């Protein structure tokens, strides 16, 4: 029995649902074109390939957040895999009140926060290469024109300082900063992902930025 069959047998869908699943599965030939809702329905009907498609679709976006929160790839990789496994095991009970992405993203963020709270994070930072597109980013161009005249500073140094400053924030504050300032998510989306009010998001963002400004005062 495959892993999917084991999980699917736990959450036997209603007969009408399974019929709908089967029909949808028949109709959808190209999974890469299917919507998330269709893919989730297929997974609930026992289609592992549909889940693979969901993993492929969102792994990098979920990974980016977890990576910026942990600061290293080993932890990020473990946590994202965990999140997708947990989502897969619980997909039978997924009520589709939110999108699959929001749901799995929330699982990943919660697991990451718990992991960081338990102090299990590896205490080294991975230092990624910056892709070449950065040269065309107006934010980056303006930042460098402002920082470089004041002191000779390389991009690597900036990255290092930034990582260190992020790690000094509490887990919840770091999550908000990563989601808002790094990933560009709205307050409303962050509130959904963290299951808190938008006011809480704004407040966390304010305190986190205050703290970071203090740490990074030489670069601002």
């Amino acid at each position, binding site marked *: 029995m495959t892993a999917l069959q084991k999980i699917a047998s736990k959450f036997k869908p209603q007969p009408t649902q399974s019929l709908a699943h089967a029909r949808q599965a028949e109709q959808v030939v190209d999974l890469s074109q299917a919507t998330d809702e269709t893919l989730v329905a297929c997974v609930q009907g026992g289609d592992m390939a549909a889940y693979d498609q969901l993993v492929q679709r969102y792994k990098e976006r979920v990974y980016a957040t977890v990576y910026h929160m942990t600061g290293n790839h080993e932890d990020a*990789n473990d946590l994202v895999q965990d999140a997708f496994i947990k989502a897969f095991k619980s997909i039978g009970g997924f009520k589709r009140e939110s999108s699959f992405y929001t749901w799995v993203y929330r699982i990943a963020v919660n697991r990451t926060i718990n992991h960081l709270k338990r102090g299990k994070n590896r205490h080294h930072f991975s230092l990624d290469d910056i892709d070449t597109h950065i040269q065309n980013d107006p934010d980056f161009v303006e930042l460098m024109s402002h920082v470089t005249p004041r002191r000779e500073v390389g991009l690597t140094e900036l990255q290092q300082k930034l990582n260190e400053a992020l790690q000094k924030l509490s887990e919840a504050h770091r999550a908000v900063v990563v989601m808002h300032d790094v990933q560009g998510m709205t307050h409303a989306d962050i509130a959904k992902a963290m299951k808190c009010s938008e006011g809480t998001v704004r407040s966390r963002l304010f305190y986190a930025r205050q703290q970071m400004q203090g740490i990074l005062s030489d670069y601002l």
Partner: protein
Amino acid sequence: MDCKKAQRSIHELGNSASPDVQRHVNECSDCRVAQQRSLHLQQLLAVKRHESPGQHYFDSFLTNFHHRLDRETTLPPTLWQRLCTRLHIEPAPRLRYGFVHALGVVFAIALMWQGLVATDLPVEADRAKGDDTFNVQIATGSLPVPSSTPQAIASALPAPQPPPVHTLLTPSVSLRDFNSPRYVLDRIALTPASYEVASIHF
């Protein structure tokens, strides 16, 4: 509007802060500096968007995911399944119930057996164990001592533990300081007739 309120609003809402806030920022140099710093911090954080772990980093993600999923959903074989494999028999449920019942019977017999053994514990062994902490004097001298005599009584006293003695008693009080129990003998039969615990002085 005070500066604290204005700066909080700048942080929280950025460019979409209210016209009141914008007006205050235009007039207040402190808040203008705060706004600039907030903007630079956001630009700095935005640099992280361009960090990537490498082109082929995610190539093996799905494969690893499946390996992990298989590992987590494959439960280790139960004791019954392992036994059946060892004995080359089909792990039929009826056999399993029989096996569980048989195990229960064996367990019950073992318990009963242990109970029987426990009531027949050698008194000598107990006394020997307690020799370091108890010094029971027996007035009968060389008389043969039945099992319901001082040794048995000594073993019924608070359970003696292996040395050191001070784990049992406070250093100032040792069982050796107690007046030894006195044994009263029947003068005619020269067999123990009663047992009195001597008074204990601390």
